[in-house]
């Protein structure tokens, strides 16, 4: 497999050096994006998002939980990701891989640090808070799972209903309005090969690229970031990509 990736890198470098991409997209173009919110009825919130041939479903569930010891007045937000074995021949059954954990944590950081969810409003009583679970279910893998997952997660949160609470427990199937959200967080992921940078790497591009940078933004701020891969970025690269993320973020937010 490694030799195939080496060949892919050579082809990618040559194509990118000519200012083109292997699927003839522009450097900073997304593939076709489709977002479907509110697709499940049992979950409190849900959505599907696809970018090109990548498909991700997100389900949102509420439970009652104990707060964390260091934050006794705040609710719990928990994000996890499953790279389902039906999504790709590259995924195997078993405990979450490091890629799955990184994916969940990057999406989590965007949602958490944007303060879009007011976790203090999840406080019910002493030792009792609401817990919100965001489950990322990867159904098809053709690269850029981070942007696809964060788009699905944001759409699922926007479709989420607050559970009805009675005598300190959740009444399933009954709701008390929508989940209030302050911000719409989106992420933009850029690949880099040699000195060339490009938005929304496909799986083939991911296999050949040196590194990637994910920037999560609200309409006003950068709220989370993650670099992956062995390559490097200059400070100028990062500020330049943030400017592009801010512009592209508007397009993504319009789809939510």
């Amino acid at each position: 497999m490694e030799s195939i990736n080496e060949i892919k890198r050579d082809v990618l470098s040559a194509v990118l050096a000519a200012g083109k991409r292997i699927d003839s997209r522009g450097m900073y173009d997304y593939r076709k994006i489709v977002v479907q919110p509110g697709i499940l009825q049992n979950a409190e919130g849900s959505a599907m998002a696809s970018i090109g041939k990548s498909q991700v479903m997100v389900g949102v569930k509420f439970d009652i939980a104990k707060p964390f010891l260091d934050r006794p007045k705040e609710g719990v937000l928990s994000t996890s990701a499953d790279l389902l074995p039906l999504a790709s021949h590259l995924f195997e059954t078993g405990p979450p891989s490091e890629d799955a954990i990184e994916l969940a944590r990057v999406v989590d950081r965007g949602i958490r640090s944007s303060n879009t969810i007011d976790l203090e409003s999840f406080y019910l009583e002493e030792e009792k808070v609401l817990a919100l679970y965001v489950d990322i279910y990867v159904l098809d893998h053709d690269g850029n799972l981070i942007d696809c997952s964060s788009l699905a997660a944001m759409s699922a949160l926007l479709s989420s209903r607050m559970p009805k609470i009675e005598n300190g427990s959740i009444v399933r199937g009954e709701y008390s309005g929508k989940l209030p959200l302050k911000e719409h967080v989106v992420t933009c992921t850029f690949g880099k090969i040699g000195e060339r940078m490009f938005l929304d790497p496909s799986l083939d591009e991911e296999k050949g690229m040196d590194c990637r940078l994910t920037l999560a933004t609200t309409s006003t701020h950068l709220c989370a970031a993650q670099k992956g891969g062995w390559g490097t970025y200059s400070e100028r690269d990062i500020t330049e990509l943030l400017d592009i993320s801010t512009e592209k973020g508007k397009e993504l937010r319009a789809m939510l």
Partner: protein
Amino acid sequence: MICNSNGDKMGATGKEKPKLYESGRRVDGRGLADLRGIKIESRVLNDADGSAYIEWGKNKILAGVYGPSECIPRHDQSLYRSVIKCRYNMAPFSGMEEHGRSGPSRRSKELSKVIKEAFESVIISENFPKTQIEIFVEVLQSDGGTRCAAVTAAAVALADAGIPMKDLISAVAVCKIDGHMAVDPGKEEDNFGESDMPIAFSPRTGEILLFQMDGLLSREELSEGISLARQASEKIRKIQVEAIAKVYQEPKEERFLVIK
């Protein structure tokens, strides 16, 4: 969570048993031999060799198939046939009740095993020695009868993958509600019925490939149940065949899952 003594989930608050059959109608208005609505869409995934999505009542289930491919680990492989593997899994957000745990439960391990065994006699596995065929089933939303819907969707996914089979199989459960045998129990009938019996048939030969049962049934009720399930599985087979044919009648430019 409230469980019955089998460890199966019960209604949200362990509420009282409703009247399940009254004046010729079941809780959701169906007659005894009526199936819930079933829709199947084949070829919805890109990387899997075959795939199918089924909506059966409120169940929403996705099946993906890979293979025949190199059997890993090698000590699993057979010199005589392809090894069939199956993973049935429920999404943590699939139920109405609390958030599920990740990782396979005892229940999902058992269901993976019986689903795999149902397919072992219909897949012509001796054509592909030293390989494996993997069936992955993800329950995205559950509403009672997920294993039967899983078998039905997996059969379409296997056909989509071009895996040779002796027959296109399907499964359906029968139940006993307020003393009457009925086909395709919904969640309430599953929780509060007197008996539940999922069956998978090979429609061409009439043979039974998956058979489970709990509750109490007389010999007559057993025969009535099997014959009800047999009639229902013929209706399901038509829906499966339509889903497989549709992929060729109306070829898709791009594959993706559309959920209504």
